[in-house]
């Protein structure tokens, strides 16, 4: 099986601090991979390296057989879409407009088309609107199309962000804590939504703290601790690995001295 996404020895250093240390990770087409790890383990930094928001200090990322350049736009155009841990919607746009922005990379109207209202503009504009409405329906926000995104409830904003990412028609979707801050009801809905996205054949890489969510949903789970992959395997394996539990709960007091000095200094 050839991997859709393949990160090789990705390392990210900020000054003296190594946030991501030689992480290698593969995602196969149609696979859901969970990325877990305690706070400050470097999960989001790793995401940022994948999507070109950071230029990794070393290592490379291959997607669909091509090396990904460290340019967020090129990554997006290659077919990788993402959501953000702290929702980054276009606050003062309506839900529909947000999703339409997601179509940007898939349309080609240029300034001349737009100024003179040439056929391409008209065609793409209608199409963009139609597709955006479809994705809104898909995530269950069809009724909220004309709401300003800043006025929407928190859970809806998360779903809107996913719809915006989906509008890009990605092959790989990166979700950064899609259920953070949600109540159990919303979490269940999100879970259901992600299952339906998988039904579309998209691969998903998801960061999450909700273990129930991860272990019920993912095909594979990788655990990141202090910037390095601790374990990468089937959910059951990871779930029962003592090191994972230790990483989350902490080392028993009597063994402590071995691991000190490398505290969670990054945030």
């Amino acid at each position: 099986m050839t991997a859709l996404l393949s990160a090789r020895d990705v390392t990210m250093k900020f000054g003296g601090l190594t946030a991501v240390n030689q992480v290698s990770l593969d995602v196969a087409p149609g696979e859901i991979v969970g990325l877990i790890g305690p706070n400050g383990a470097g999960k989001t930094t790793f995401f940022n390296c994948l999507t070109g928001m950071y230029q990794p200090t070393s290592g490379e990322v291959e997607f669909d057989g091509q090396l990904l350049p460290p340019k967020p736009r090129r990554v997006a155009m290659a077919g990788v879409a993402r959501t953000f841990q702290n929702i980054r919607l276009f606050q003062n746009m309506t839900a529909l407009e947000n999703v339409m922005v997601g179509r940007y990379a898939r349309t080609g109207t240029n300034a001349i088309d737009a100024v003179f209202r040439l056929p391409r503009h008209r065609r793409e504009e209608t199409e963009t609107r139609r597709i955006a409405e479809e994705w809104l329906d898909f995530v269950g926000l069809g009724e909220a199309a004309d709401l300003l995104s800043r006025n929407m409830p928190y859970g809806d904003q998360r779903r809107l962000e996913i719809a915006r990412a989906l509008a890009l028609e990605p092959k790989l979707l990166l979700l950064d804590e899609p259920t953070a801050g949600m109540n159990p009801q919303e979490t269940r809905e999100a879970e259901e939504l992600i299952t339906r996205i998988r039904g579309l054949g998209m691969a998903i890489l998801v960061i999450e703290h909700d273990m129930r969510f991860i272990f019920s949903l993912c095909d594979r789970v990788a655990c990141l601790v202090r910037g390095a992959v601790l374990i990468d395997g089937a959910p059951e394996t990871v779930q029962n690995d003592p090191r994972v539990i230790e990483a989350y709960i902490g080392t028993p007091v009597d063994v402590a001295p071995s691991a000190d000095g490398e505290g969670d200094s990054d945030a």
Partner: protein
Amino acid sequence: MNDTGSLVTLAPDSSGPAPTGERWIRFAKPARWIAIAGAVGVLAAPFMAWAYRPDALDDVSFWGEPSPLQWFAFALGLLLLGCLVAPFVIKPRPGRRPRRLLAFNRGAKAAASGSLVYFAVASAAIVLELGGLVALEPGAWAGLAGALVATVATRALPEGHDPRLQFLNTPAWGQILGIVGAVALVLFAAAYGLGQDGASTFVTFGVLCGVGVYVAARVGVMGWLSAAAARNRRALVLAAFAVAFLFPMTQDGSDANMSIAVGVLIFAATAMGLNIVVGLAGLLDLGYIAFLGAGAFTAAILSRSAFATLGWSPPFPVVVLISGTVAAILGLIIGSPTLRVSGDYLAIVTLAFGEIFRITMNNLDGVDGPNLTRGSNGIPAIPDLELFGFDFGESHMILGVQIGRFANYYWLMLLVLALIILVFTNLNHSRIGRGWVAIREDERAAEAMGVNVFGLKLLAFAGGAFLAGIAGAVKAHVDVSVTPDQYIFMESAFLVAGIVLGGMGTVGGVLIGASILKLLPEKLRFFEDYRLLMFGVLLVVMMRFRPEGLMPDERRQLEFHADDDELAEEIGENIEAHVIPSLAGAPEPDLKGDDA
């Protein structure tokens, strides 16, 4: 801060009756009669002399023969009286719910206080011009007293219901007629106002216009008009351009106002180009005047002026394209740092670029550099344009009206402005416009969504610069001479201020801002020495209290009030309200509560 002032919400707010009204409401009946008495005073005043000598205002020293300004006061009085008497005349048909189309009480209040302001300003003008209270004649006193009585008395009237005129199903021709009528009124006001030489007459007339708009808004006419305008955009645009096109016809062959009008149009066109950069792409450019200058210098160098340094003068359409292109190339150069630099830094880079442009134009004089611009002498004696046999320098008779040199250029500039507005709105309502909004909102998220951030920023710079370059090419011929000292930082600051004043990202706002900034100094010359001071203070005050401008773009307004959730709700509702009627075809009559 919550009265948004946008077109759609100009209709009276839905807050209940004012507390004072509540307290005095039991005196409503007698108050109405007292107010009517006041209105009669206002109506009588125009037939009396206001001033002792003729030099104040437009000669208000006659008995029985009102001057135009006095007739306007009479009209205000009629409005006031009408609002007061209307409830006696208009009775709901038995068995039907009252239609409550107009809010007459609110209108009466507005008309009364408006009259008071009008008479106060007029009296103040007389007193200032003739020196002393003695100069006031009984007419002025009668008007003041009547308006004061009416103002006090109308306070006791209940606030009443919201006007519902805007939800009335008016036939399309009626709406268009309303728009045309309103636009024609604007034409008349503009022509009349510009015709006033005296600063006091101009100010008094300006106050009248303000009062008129205010009363119309309170009564509910404005709400109807803006709803009609929103539904008939094309008619509005056509009517506005027709009126702008007809404006020179009202000037009776005089070039005096046309010269000012051309200046306003050039300024507005440039500001509109800048609005693409600032208003749409959200990049502050403090050196924008350089693009106008680049266009003007290019056109001057390529003109048939004896001072032109290249000795090559292609036909004007070609020159326009070259001017635009030169400016656009400069725009690309100045825009290229946006790849690495953003925010305040970019603003400073553009400022530095503007200075570099000015100094360079000054230096390309054959001494400190190749002789291209003749340095500080600039390029004078640029001949008038000749397009398809039409000489812009000549006067022409059109429909019996003499159309002079500046009117010719006015029409040309009008076309340029129309082009720029077209580019502006079409870009705004397209994939590109959406990209710009996304960049403004969250640049990194936009990039992660595949928006070509750098490309769109460059497009804004180059496109805006291209349009400014075109405006500059015309300006060179209007001004006859092009010198570097016309393109200083202060001019860039004025352009930014024009946008900020009117409202970033909107067409109407920029037109209003440009008119205010260019017209007022011409008409209020006595004020001249304090112009810059006021300008600076205005910028500070605007940023403090209304950073989104007089006529803001809704989205922009939200950006400036990131923490104001109430405003967001309100505007959110408005946006939905726009969308629903346009989808449903007709407005819903009971969209708003019965007696909110």
